[in-house]
């Protein structure tokens, strides 16, 4: 009996492991920044290049940092959702225009609406590296104390906004 049960058991265990492996998303790498102070930068703004923006300016409120670029197809798909979210005045969304041409970024916002209170302009992608950006779009949730509390990798979805983002922001606002 053992002769058959043992290989069968091993096979079933293997199938279970492979099955779990199939449901994991290898693109989602947990960010080491969670619960750490948001990496500092001081970058020119996208709209007004003579003004700057820094995460420090936003201390004391809960805000989102959305990394985006006009060349990024998924960002364009995500864009209407961000516009919708910004209309609700639920949480301020700040943008980080990542390795983009200024005129291209501005053109996208002009054409499809601007969900951002402000966008920082990161031409070289150096702030992106500090934030551990490896695939746009990415969205960070930063709390009142300036700590990164959550990172969304890839495009936001209505489900993610309802199930994860909204309760989280509410909780952080009450902290």
């Amino acid at each position, binding site marked *: 009996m053992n002769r058959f049960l043992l290989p069968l058991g091993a096979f079933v265990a293997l199938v279970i492991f492979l099955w779990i492996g199939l449901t994991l998303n290898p693109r989602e*790498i947990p*960010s*080491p*920044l969670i619960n750490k102070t948001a990496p500092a930068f001081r970058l020119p703004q996208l709209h007004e290049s003579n003004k700057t923006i820094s995460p420090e300016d936003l201390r004391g409120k809960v805000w989102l940092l959305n990394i985006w670029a006009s060349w990024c197809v998924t960002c364009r798909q995500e864009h209407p959702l961000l516009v919708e979210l910004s209309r609700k005045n639920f949480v301020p969304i700040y943008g980080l225009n990542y*390795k983009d041409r200024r005129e291209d970024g501005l053109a996208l916002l002009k054409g499809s609406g601007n969900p951002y209170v402000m966008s920082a302009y990161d031409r070289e*992608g150096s702030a992106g*590296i500090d934030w*551990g950006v*490896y*695939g746009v779009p990415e969205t960070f949730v930063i709390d009142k104390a300036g700590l990164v509390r959550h990172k969304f990798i890839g495009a936001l979805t209505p489900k993610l906004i309802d199930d994860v983002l909204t309760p989280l922001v509410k909780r952080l606002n009450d902290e």
Partner: protein
Amino acid sequence: MNNKFILTLLFLWMPLAQADVAATTRDDPALEKRAMALSGHLRCLVCQNQTIADSNAELAVDLKNQVRDKLRQGQSEQEILDYMVNRYGEFVLFSPLVKSTTWLLWFGPLLLFVVGLYVLAVNLRQRRRLMQQAPTLNKEEHARAAALLSGKETKGHP
């Protein structure tokens, strides 16, 4: 314009296209060697089974430039690895760290090998015991067995 001229132009263009990549550390081969060696330990997060040394993805090129800049600034290899880990997590290290959560990964194969050796040893011992338990034959029986094996005796034992 004839074709040869166009072709010549194309070939003249080729080194130019390469130039912007090489120009960064062309003047310092030792530094470039160190940068590439270190890049071989860092995972490209866009193309996860490649190191940034092997990859030409835009992020990998950026990270390689970061490695070069930091080496030029005099940072040590370990400092640069720490810098990357602080931003991208331990996953950025191409060979995982040895710690409690990765013991199975590192020593799992060894564990399987030991288990295999154990199973082999148990099996061999069992087989030896069976051999010892096997009935021994006397002369007559040996002769009959030999005859049976050679096919001369066809009748079964009574």
